[in-house]
C-alpha cells in the first residue's frame, strides 16, 4: 500500500500541471508600451511548492495572474493540465479558474458583508454546488471553527488570511496561487501561513507564491527570481521548452 502511494506521488511529480511558453504581456500607457512580462517560459510539476521572487515591477504578479487565467497574455501560450488556454472564451477561462485554481491575495479579498463561513463558500455560489461539509473541514484545517460567524473586520490579519486560504481551497483546486500572502501580516502570523502552505503542499497541493518574504521563499522547494519581466534565475527548472524563449535550461 505504501509502495503504491509512493509510486503515485512519483507519477504526480512527473506530471506537468502548468506550462508557460513565451508569455509576454504588454501594457500601453499613451504612446509608451510597458513589457510587464517578456517571453517567459517555464513549467510547474504537480505537487511543487514554488516561490516567485524579485523586486517590485519585475512582473511577478502579472505572471501569477496569467498562470491563474485571470488575464490573457499579449503573446505566448499557456497550458494547464496539457490544455492550451489560447483562444478560450472568458466563460471557459472562468470555468478553468473555478475548477483548477485557488487564489490567495495580499489584501485577503474577503467580502466585508459576509461571515467567515459565507466567504469560504462564496466560490460555490458561482459553481452552484453544495460544499458545506468541505467548508466545515476547511474551517477546522485553518483553525477558524470558532470564528465561523464573525465578519472580516472582527478578525486579525492572520485569521483573515487563513479564511482566504480556506476559500481558495473550497472547490478542491489542483493549484494554489498566492500573491504576497504574508505581505500584510506580522512575523508570527506570517510563519503560521507558511506552515499552512507547507502542510497543504505535503498533502499534494501545488502551491505557487509570489513573495518578498525571504523566509517564505526559503521554505519553498523551488525559487524563480524575476527582473524586468524576465526570469533571472530558477533554482530547479523543469526542462527546456523553446530555443527562443527566456528560459533556463538544465
Amino acid at each position: 500500500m505504501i509502495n503504491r502511494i509512493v509510486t503515485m506521488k512519483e507519477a504526480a511529480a512527473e506530471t506537468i500541471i502548468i506550462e508557460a511558453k513565451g508569455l509576454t504581456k504588454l501594457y500601453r500607457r499613451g504612446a509608451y508600451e510597458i513589457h510587464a512580462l517578456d517571453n517567459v517560459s517555464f513549467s510547474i510539476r504537480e505537487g511543487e511548492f514554488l516561490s516567485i521572487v524579485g523586486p517590485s515591477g519585475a512582473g511577478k504578479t502579472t505572471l501569477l495572474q496569467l498562470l491563474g487565467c485571470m488575464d490573457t497574455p499579449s503573446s505566448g501560450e499557456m497550458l494547464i493540465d496539457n490544455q492550451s488556454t489560447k483562444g478560450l472564451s472568458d466563460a471557459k477561462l472562468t470555468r478553468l479558474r473555478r475548477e483548477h485554481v485557488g487564489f490567495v491575495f495580499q489584501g485577503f479579498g474577503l467580502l466585508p458583508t459576509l461571515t467567515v463561513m459565507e466567504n469560504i463558500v462564496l466560490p460555490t455560489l458561482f459553481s452552484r454546488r453544495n460544499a458545506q461539509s468541505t467548508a466545515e473541514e476547511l474551517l477546522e484545517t485553518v483553525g477558524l471553527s470558532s470564528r465561523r460567524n464573525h465578519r472580516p473586520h472582527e478578525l486579525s490579519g492572520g485569521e483573515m488570511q487563513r479564511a482566504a486560504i480556506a476559500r481558495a481551497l473550497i472547490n478542491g483546486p489542483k493549484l494554489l496561487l498566492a500573491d504576497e500572502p504574508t505581505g500584510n501580516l506580522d512575523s508570527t502570523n506570517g510563519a503560521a501561513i507558511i506552515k499552512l502552505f507547507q502542510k497543504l503542499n505535503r498533502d499534494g497541493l501545488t502551491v505557487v507564491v509570489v513573495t518578498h518574504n525571504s523566509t517564505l521563499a526559503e521554505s519553498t522547494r523551488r525559487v524563480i527570481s524575476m527582473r524586468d519581466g524576465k526570469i533571472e534565475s530558477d533554482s530547479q527548472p523543469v526542462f527546456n521548452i523553446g530555443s527562443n524563449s527566456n528560459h533556463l535550461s538544465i
Partner: protein
Amino acid sequence: MMELAVRNLLRRRTRSIFTLLGVAAAVAILACLAAFGQGYQRGLSQELDNMGMQMMLVPMGCPFDAAARVLKGKTLDVSLPMTALDAARSDKDVQIAAPLLMAALPRPSEGRTDLWVGVDESIRPLKPWWKLTSGSTWFTDDHSVILGAEAASTELRRVGDTLFSPEANRSFRVSGILERSGTSDDSLFFIPMHAAQEMFHQSGRLTAVAIRLRDPEQITGVSTRLQNTPGAQVVTMTEMMGTFLNLVGAVRTLVLAIAIVAITISTLSVFNTMLSAVLERTSELGVMRAVGASRSQIFRLLAIESILMTAVGSAAGLLLAVVAGRMVGRVVKNFVPLPPSESLLAVSGILALQCIALGVGVGLIAGIYPAWQASRLTPAQALRVE
C-alpha cells in the same frame, strides 16, 4: 445571489435609502396621477349614472358650466322659462323632466350663504341616494322644507321643528331631513318649487330641467327637438363627461410631464448610485471573478441590486401614493370640475403592477451600463484597482 445583493445594498444604507426615496417619490407622483385620472373618470361616470338622467335643459350661455353648477348645487345668474319644462314633459320620449330652481340666500349674521333649491316630486327618482331619516316625510305644503344632513346640523333642527329665515321673512316646518350622502345635497335646503319661485321672486322661472329618457337610445332625437326650446339649450351627460375629462386630461398631461422628469431624475440617480457602487467595489468584484464568478454572474448581481432597489422604491412609492394621495385628493377636489363625492384616488391591482413594472424597468435601464461595466473587466484589471 439575492442575499448577496441585499447585503451589498445595506452596506451603504444612507445612499441606498436616498436613491430608493427618489424612486418612491417619482412612482408616487405617477401612481397618484394615474389613480386620480381613473378615480375621477370612475366617480364622475358613477355619479352621472346614479342620477339616471341623460340630459339637462339649461339657460343660454356655456352649457357645461351651467350644468356643472346645477349638478353641484350652485346658483346661476340666468334662468329658464317654465315653458322649457312644459316642452320637455310634452316630448313623447321623455320619462321624467324634473325642474330645479337654485338660489343663494346670504346670511350675513352667520357669515355664510345658504343654497336653497326648489324642486317637486319628480326629482326623487333622479336622486336615488336620497334617504329620509326616520319620521321624515315629503313636502306636505308650501311651508315645508327638507334639509340636507349638514344643513340640519348647522341649523340645529329636527323633523317637525320650525325654521325661520329672517332674510326671506318666512317660516318653514322641517318635514324631512336627508341622511348624509357625501354629496353637495348635504348642505342644501330643499323647498317646493312654487315656494322657491315666490321666495326668490323668480315666478315662472327655473334654473334647469333634469331629463331622464324612456329609452337612452333616443337621446339624439330628443336633443334635437328640445334644442329648439326658446331661451334654453340642451346639454347631454355624455358631452359633459367628455368635456370635463378633456379638461382634466389637459392638466394630467402637464402633470405627466412633471412625472416623466421625476422618473428620469430617479433613473439617473439609480444609475449614479450603481456606477459609484461598481467603482467602489471594483477590486471586490475582481476577487469574485478570481474565485469563479463569470461575467454573466457579475452582471446579474449588479442588475439584481439595481432592480431590487427600484422595485422596493416603487412599492414604497405606491404605498405613499395610497396614504398621501388621499390627502392630496381632498385638496385636488377643489380644483377639478364636477368632483365626484367619493375618493378621487383609485389604485387598482393593474395600476400597482404597472408601477412595480415601471420600477423594475427603471432599475434595469439604470443598472445595465454599470453592470456591463463591472462584468467586462478581467479579474486582473479589477484587482489592479485599489
